[in-house]
């Protein structure tokens, strides 16, 4: 059976003054009810554009979008803007990184939640308001009857993000896309928000697409992980596989650049050398080859395909599988010896 949300060969490019930017370059992935797909990558890897394209928010005069986004069997890319509007909100909802700039500064938060209800359902303002209060209670905002009349700037960062989540979930969508939902928050609040998303997901059997650059967030929440680099998925698999047996040099780099408490402290963290590539003139062959420590001559000319190395585990790399596994065994952080 097909997944609830099935993205197939999605390509998004923007016409800019500097040339054509290939922000998303053939991405295929999927997520099902009750599951969480983590999209990981550096800034500019195309993860946000992928998510925005799903609900048509990259429909701009200078953008070109191709491929398929099958949602419940319908290709969202083929829908008219009007039909897509009725999908956004009640079927697929989205929350964003910075809740302060993502909420309208001039309207009360309750009003903004009510507006989402009224846009899609024929209910009275009074009923919409009651539901807004309920939604705020569901996201564990204290004293929602009072907070509905607050403006966004009068709430704390965590409360704002809760209000955003209430707004996204008030119509009980099938899919929640969360674009860096915790990046702008304190670490303690981050954990609460992630826990909240997870428990709401459990209650409503929602499919979640979680976009982040933070492997810690992914490790806590995702079932499936897709690692993106320069507009492409370079590795995809179940969370345990990606954390325990990653096979792409870029994933290794990401995992190694996380500070850890459970391994001996090295002198310094190991960043991935070099800078992310230009998306206007991407490198030939494997896009990661200029920064890859294990680069081979063929990487410079030939594009690696995303191939299955284990059931459910896909990797786009020219290194032989055995070689990749050997290197990871050497690289993997060793738990601290019992002292």
């Amino acid at each position, binding site marked *: 059976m097909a997944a609830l949300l099935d993205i197939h060969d999605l390509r998004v490019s923007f016409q800019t003054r500097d040339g054509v930017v290939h922000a998303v370059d053939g991405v295929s992935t999927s997520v099902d009810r009750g599951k969480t797909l983590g999209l990981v990558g550096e800034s500019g890897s195309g993860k946000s554009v992928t998510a*925005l394209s799903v609900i048509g928010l990259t429909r701009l005069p200078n953008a070109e979008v191709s491929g398929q986004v099958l949602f419940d069997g319908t290709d969202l890319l083929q829908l008219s*803007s009007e039909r897509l509007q*009725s999908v956004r909100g009640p079927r697929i909802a989205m929350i*964003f990184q910075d809740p302060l*700039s993502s909420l309208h*500064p001039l309207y009360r938060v309750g009003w903004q939640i009510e*507006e989402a209800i009224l*846009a899609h359902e024929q209910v009275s303002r009074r009923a919409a308001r009651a539901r807004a209060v309920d939604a705020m209670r569901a996201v564990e905002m204290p004293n929602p009857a009072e907070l509905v009349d607050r403006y966004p700037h009068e709430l704390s960062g965590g409360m704002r993000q809760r209000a955003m989540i209430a707004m996204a979930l008030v119509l009980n969508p099938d899919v929640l896309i969360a674009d860096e939902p915790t990046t702008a928050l304190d670490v303690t609040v981050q954990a609460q928000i992630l826990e909240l998303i997870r428990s709401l997901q459990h209650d409503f059997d929602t499919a979640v697409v979680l976009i982040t650059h933070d492997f810690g967030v992914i490790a806590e929440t995702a079932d499936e992980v897709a690692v993106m680099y320069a507009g492409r998925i370079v590795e995809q698999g179940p969370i345990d596989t990606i954390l325990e047996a990653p096979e792409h040099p870029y994933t290794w780099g990401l995992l190694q650049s996380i500070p850890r408490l459970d391994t001996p402290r090295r002198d310094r963290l190991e960043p991935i050398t070099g800078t992310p590539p230009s998306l206007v003139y991407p490198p030939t062959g494997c896009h990661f080859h200029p920064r890859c420590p294990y680069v081979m001559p063929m990487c410079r000319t030939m594009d690696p395909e995303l191939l299955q190395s284990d059931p459910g585990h896909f990797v786009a790399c020219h290194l032989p599988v055995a070689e990749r596994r050997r290197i990871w065994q050497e690289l993997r952080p060793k738990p601290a010896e019992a002292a």
Partner: protein
Amino acid sequence: MARYIVRRLAWAVVMLVVVSALTFLIFYTFPSADPAALRAGRQATPQLIEQIRHALGLDKPVYEQFFIYMKNLGLHFDLGYSYQNNVPVRQEIFARLPATISLTAGAFVVWMLIGIPVGVLSAIRPRSVGDRVAMGGALVGISAPVYWLGLVALFLFASDIGKVHLFGGAGSYVPLTQDPGGWVKSLILPWFVLAAAFAAFYARMVRGNLIEVMGEDYIRTARAKGLPERRVILRHGLRAALTPIVTIAGLDIGILLGGAVLTETVFNIPGVGRFAYDSIVNSDLPAIQGTVLFGALFIIVANLIVDIAYAFLDPRVRY
């Protein structure tokens, strides 16, 4: 809030005193005709001129004249008597206010009704043909001087000298209370002429602000909620884009209530601006003072109202 308003009003008084002093200073520093001689008429004897000079108090030192003026203004709200015809300046100005208010209010409606829609349409299709035409038109509107535009309008549409006899020409103003139909007819040309530059300027401002706002994160949120694009633009985009424009609109109204000198002069509308122009021509110091003070008062009050209104328009602003 109350403390803030009191403080602002206190400053307003200080400002008005300073403005009066400056007007006195400018009047006596720069060369102008001798008001006493003007008042005395042609072939007046030197004795008569001296007599008038004394009657008007012009033989006293400037600082004493200023002091007397401020005392009368402060104690009796007395702006003095026109050198020209001995009529109280306050009465002269109040008699002319309705015409100026009529002109300003109508022009304001016209420029907002043109400026905002044009700005919005330009903003949602930037660099389209429509946008380029609108912004080209706006450039012409901003560049065209009111006195030229006014004369062209009269030449084309005035009921007396126009190519097409459509609207009232110069000097056709009738008060609203006397003849509402005639009031509209006589003011249509001045409204549009005065509004032209403002409409152009506001269209550009709305366009610029709205383009900027439409790139904000909360617009993306509004779209992600599945709102119709129309609502995203008007309720979310325009609402935010208009807030700073309200400030400028308030100030513009304040300035115009002090007298739209050029428009009132071209169309010969008996308003405060026309009065200011006449009093300058006649070196009529009390009348000049009166119009300047009124103008300053309107600007100060408009400023205060705008600042208070802003706290209601933008909940993030607190005093």
